[in-house]
């Protein structure tokens, strides 16, 4: 009797405390998201009328020659963008974290410096890097010339072959602090006893890192990977700031975010198409969902988490 009474009271408690967060989250995230997905199944006839169109918009996205090549190119570019982050940003982040975790007096200084670009506005970052790399008055060319590598310089942001990787590397520069700080937090959480025991057993620093520390931070590696994936497939601001909505030259820096923007809001003489835009947004949502599911079922469940 008493126990059932207590049981019925607990949910009220929980509900009251959950309510503000759930309410805000529902109003500002869940409802717009569902509404956006709903919009992708409609077509707009005029200002006051929307018709249900079924999967028509999706069929158009994958078969119409005005959308399909753009979609696939944006997706491919997005994977390149993601690959650069996985191959450059995260290993560098791990390296920096390992160095910082070793200690040293200037550790806090470097930790702050490296993390700083992350909190800067992307507009500032885009502007500063455009100035640095500007072939007319940029400092990059002078620096390369000073060390005798002037011939290596090119208008990287303006060439279709190099623009995407250049933008991706600028994004890496901005966000390298995040994997670094995550890895760092994981590394300093490893008890000293373990590394000391390894040293006593004659393990080199290299072996200690790869055989003892790295397996212990594998869960963090997974989190960093999935965060990078989500962040990259939502990326938009840096490319919009630096290359505009047309993601030039010749769409070589067009990723899902800019493709979505152009479709939804239009560009110059091209009018926006909200329903097709919502369709692109829904695809972005599905891609990100798929990535997160892969992480959850193929990585998070298999990686062993050690109690330390």
């Amino acid at each position, binding site marked *: 009797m008493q126990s059932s009474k207590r049981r019925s009271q607990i949910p009220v408690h929980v509900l009251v405390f959950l309510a503000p967060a759930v309410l805000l989250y529902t109003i500002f995230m869940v409802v717009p998201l569902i509404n956006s997905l709903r919009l992708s199944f409609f077509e707009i006839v005029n200002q006051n009328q929307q018709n249900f169109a079924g999967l028509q918009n999706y069929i158009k996205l994958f078969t119409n020659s005005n959308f399909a090549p753009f979609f696939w190119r944006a997706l491919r570019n997005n994977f390149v963008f993601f690959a650069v982050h996985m191959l450059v940003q995260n290993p560098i982040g791990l390296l920096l974290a390992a160095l910082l975790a070793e200690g040293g007096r200037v550790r806090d200084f470097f930790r702050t410096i490296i993390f700083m670009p992350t909190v800067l506005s992307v507009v500032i970052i885009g502007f500063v890097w455009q100035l640095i790399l500007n072939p007319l008055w940029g400092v990059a060319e002078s620096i390369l010339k000073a060390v005798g590598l002037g011939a290596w310089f090119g*208008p990287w942001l303006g060439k279709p072959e190099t623009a995407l990787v250049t933008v991706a590397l600028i994004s890496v520069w901005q966000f390298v602090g995040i994997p670094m700080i995550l890895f760092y937090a994981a590394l300093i959480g490893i008890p000293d006893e373990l590394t000391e025991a390894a040293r006593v057993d004659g393990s080199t620093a290299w072996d200690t890192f790869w055989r003892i520390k790295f397996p212990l931070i594998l869960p963090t590696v997974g989190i960093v990977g999935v965060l990078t994936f989500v962040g990259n497939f939502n990326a938009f601001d840096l490319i919009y700031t630096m290359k505009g*909505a047309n993601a030039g030259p010749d769409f070589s820096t067009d990723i899902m975010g800019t493709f979505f923007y152009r479709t*939804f809001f239009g560009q110059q*003489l*091209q009018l926006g198409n909200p329903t097709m835009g919502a369709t692109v947004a829904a695809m972005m*949502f599905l891609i990100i969902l798929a990535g997160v599911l892969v992480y959850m079922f193929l990585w998070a469940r298999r990686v062993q988490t050690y109690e330390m």
Partner: protein
Amino acid sequence: MRKLLTIISLLVVLSVVLTACGGGAAPTQAPAATEPPAATEPSAATEAPAATEAPAATEAPAAGEAVTLTIESWRNDDLSIWTDKIIPAFEAKYPNIHVVFAPTAPAEYNGVLNTKLQGGTAGDLITCRPFDASLELFQQGYLTSLNDLPGMENFGDVAKSAWITDDNKDVFCVPMASVIHGFFYNKDTFDKYSLQEPTTREEFFNVLKTLKDNGETPLVMGTADQWEAATMGFQNIGPEYWKGEEGRQALIKGTAKFTDEPYIKTWQDLADWAPYLPEGYEAEKYPDSQTLFTLGKGAIYPTGSWEISQFEKDAGFNLGIFKPYVENAGDQCYISDHTDIAMGMNAKTAHSEEAKTFLSWVASDEFAALYANALPGFFPLSNAKVTLDDPLANEFLSWRQECKSTIRNSYQILSRGEPNLENELWRVSAAVMNGSMTPEQAGQEIQTGLEKWYKPQ
């Protein structure tokens, strides 16, 4: 213990970072990033609440209280001219109406405006892009018909052609100005090497070569923003090859194709310009080019009359202009005299009477004279006889006598479908100048795109 503290503090930092990242997880979040341009126009945002105060709005005309009108525009370069010259002249006449000029960056204007109109937060007066972009807005009910507006009789059919329905029944914007394409040059540099203004293709390339041989940067232009290549390159010199209106109408009728010789020749010329452009022009943006030229570091700058006021202010040397070169000496010359700017009224404005008063004033002779002299390089479209004080503007205007006028060929009708012709011209013209596409490929891609949706082709 210290280790524990460090971990806790790091966790706090991380939770902040993670929530920041997590916020971007939903794709619906992306539009938020586009807000900044809109947010830079506080007047438009504050307009909305004001409009909902119904009693105040209805009371205003009777009580003679001041009403605020907001102008949407892409001409952010003209902000000071509007606020210092044009608006004060209007407010002196109509003290009850306060006008705010609230521009957006040119490349973002159309997207931002469409979003604001859909969201009901756009200003009372809308600066109209020519042809289809504005026609679409009218057809969707965002702009009002201005057939009965006092002052509309001051405009001829050509002036109105860019802002009228296909059946010529409804005019929806008051024509304000046209711009003329051409080349600016540095007179001092030309004098130094005793060069003459080139009139033919051969002379033009000879001038470029002489300048290059002397270590100068002959031609200033970048392709990073893409539109310069199309607007200031392709649409600037192209009319000489496709014979202005004749070629433009032929495209609309379907009797000419973008794979035809005139178009290939135009792109070939752009490709031939490339060796004379500044080092790294592929990553050079429009403001870079303007700065480079006004600093005197480049000799010739292909552009249009809209640059006059900025260049006269910034350039520390003698400016000259010459018109687009013709293929052979003695050929008829054509100029792109593009009907560019007009102003219409937001159909949902709360102050339609005041907005109409302003538009009537825009249609008046007084405005034409004021605008043409405040903004040399924007030539009035009304029948008013306006005398221009600026010598460069007068020189541009004099070309109307010797050459035949045309407008940009992608603006009327041809940009109605997908893929959008204007966007495509930006892309391929920039690619041709970058050397990543041949003129023939460019013609082929544009033609294929147009044939997809445009029946006459």
